[in-house]
């Protein structure tokens, strides 16, 4: 019997369209990039039983299981249930797989669970964000990285979140060894200097990476009890105008970031190009069209930014404009 498959529904169900006729690939969602070993084994089992025995590790920390016959999709969905349960990903109907694929897997670097430089638990926050915005069909990319090294490449996302700590200085514990100064200069931005044997931090220059805390031998430098973040927005890859996300908020808090991301969906619903292919359009292009202020109006609706938060009144993006010129000169 010939196949009669609703491809749009298939894709919304987090299965990929394959160039191999009759086959698909199951897209496993792994918020924050952390999966337990049991679920990893389940992915292996699905690949062996239904796929072609391979697993593709995606750029966004998900997994794709290729070579699945289209008629096996319902069975695969049932087998995905335990993985979905373990990952805590929101679902609409049990046994029916993922309810959406538009809002992409939320990326996270290893963060403070593993990395000495991580300023916060990226995994936990990526999972919290995933619970807050998924399922949704809108094409939204969010990534969390633990510090300004940006190992998670958050600047390529619609929302890129970089961890920050506000260094706390106890001058009575400082012995003037200047290791913080040295390491800030070589590993970070050089925001520290010595004045009369004690350390002065240039608060404007400091990016809150925590390198000084890491290298202080006496605990004169410690981390702020509060976790802070830098929010970069509207980065993207793609054909027309790929560009890095730019800083919008600095020293912003976690709750505000979640709310801003949630608010953005209403903004997209209002302003998305009705003719966008597949109902998907990078948010940045919508912002280019509506103007930045319109985005800000929607994004900050009901958001109370903390007293320490700094906000750029205007954001300017760069990037290549392939839609205008493709010349190399």
């Amino acid at each position, binding site marked *: 019997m010939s196949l009669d498959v609703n491809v749009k529904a298939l894709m919304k169900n987090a299965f990929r369209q394959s160039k191999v006729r009759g086959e698909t690939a199951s897209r496993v969602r792994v918020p924050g990039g952390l999966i337990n070993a049991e679920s990893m084994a389940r992915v292996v089992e699905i690949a062996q039983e239904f796929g072609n025995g391979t697993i593709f590790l995606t750029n966004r920390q998900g997994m794709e299981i290729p070579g699945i016959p289209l008629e096996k999709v319902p069975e695969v969905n049932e087998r995905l249930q335990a993985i979905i349960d373990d990952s805590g990903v929101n679902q609409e109907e049990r046994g029916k797989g993922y309810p959406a694929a538009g809002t992409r897997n939320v990326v996270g670097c290893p963060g*403070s669970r593993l990395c000495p430089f991580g300023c916060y638990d990226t995994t936990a926050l990526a999972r919290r964000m995933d619970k807050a915005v998924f399922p949704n069909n809108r094409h939204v990319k969010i990534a969390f990285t633990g510090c300004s090294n940006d190992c998670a490449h958050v600047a390529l996302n619609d929302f890129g979140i970089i961890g920050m700590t506000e260094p706390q200085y106890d001058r009575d514990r400082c*012995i003037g060894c200047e290791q913080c100064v040295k390491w800030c200069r070589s590993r970070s931005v050089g925001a520290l200097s010595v004045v009369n044997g004690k350390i002065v931090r240039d608060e404007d220059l400091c990016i809150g990476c925590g390198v000084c805390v890491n290298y202080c031998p*006496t605990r004169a430098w*410690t981390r702020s*009890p509060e976790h802070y973040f830098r929010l970069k927005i509207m980065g993207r890859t793609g054909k027309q105008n790929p560009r890095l996300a730019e800083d919008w908020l600095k020293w912003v808090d976690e709750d505000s970031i979640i709310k801003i991301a949630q608010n953005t969906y209403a903004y997209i619903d209002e302003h998305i190009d009705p003719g966008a292919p597949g109902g998907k359009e990078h948010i940045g292009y919508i912002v280019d069209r509506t103007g930045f202020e319109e985005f800000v109006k929607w994004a900050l609706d009901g958001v109370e930014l903390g007293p320490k938060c700094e906000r750029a009144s205007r954001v300017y993006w760069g990037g290549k404009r392939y839609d205008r010129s493709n010349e190399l000169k």
Partner: protein
Amino acid sequence: MGYVLSREGLDQVLQGLGTEYRLYAPVLKMGEGRFADTDVVRYDFVTSLDQIELSKKSDYAFKELLTPLSETLFFFTEGEVKVADKDVRDVIVLLRACDLHAVKRLDQMYLANGTEKDWFYQRIRDHVRFALIGCPSSFENCFCASMGTNVAPEGWVFSLEEADGGYRCAVADGTLAGLFAEHADAEADVEPAHVVENDTKVRVPENVPTAIYKHQMWDEYTVRCLKCGRCTIACPTCTCYTMQDVFYTDNGRVGERRRVAASCMIDGYTDVAGGGQYRRTGGERMRFKVLHKVHDFRARFGYDMCVGCGRCDDICPEYISFAACVNKLADAVDALGKEVDGDE
């Protein structure tokens, strides 16, 4: 005299002591660790039992009271000098057996090393007494048994340790007995618990030939060591300091002399005029530190400086083990001895 106390009872005792003494004890500082959302245990003044961390080894030692990390000694302006004010109310420091042994090393260095006593040290030291935290078991990296510092020396006024949901205290200072008796559940024979054996064992060489200075065993530390000096800051026996003469920028004729901790492991320690630096590499610095702890100090004062608390091993970000290094040193000394025998 010994007493068994409930948690509330011991807290009452500490509150009672608080009327006459300040209490200086290990405290769990939440979120003040090196990494995000990690803690550190270091000493601070406390007013109740709840604030005291008794279940962990402190990452930093009690010595910060006697030899502050940074201390203004005096202020100067033109021809006048004013000694900096100091809170010199009496203090009881809660510490473990190894650290009480460390006090002897600090006293040695500041009060009985040459003809002069360190006036600024003495003015703090005269007001400090000690209470012993018993050690029913060893912590990771401790090697007090190897260093002979597992049993506390005399010099503590009372001891305390957790036992059976309460506390057991021995009281050595008779003047405190009344306070303990008032809040105790019962009297008992109490001997402060001490460690008998540690997992980490260290073999200290008796004599170290000078040929060891050129030995290749130090070379690995040139590659491994960051020269951060955490080992020496955390060490209860390291006493090195340097001076900062600070001239206030608005005037230039007014300022202060500050004494700050220094370390043979940290850049700047062996700098001399003309840009020279006697010990440049991590290997050279490690050699100096290790030999000082288990040989040089003994050559001068008759006993080893190291008290085997293992804080240096706990804190090293590069997993350099002082204990392992001393054992390597002992092996290297043995091997050198055989070479010499063979020559004869």
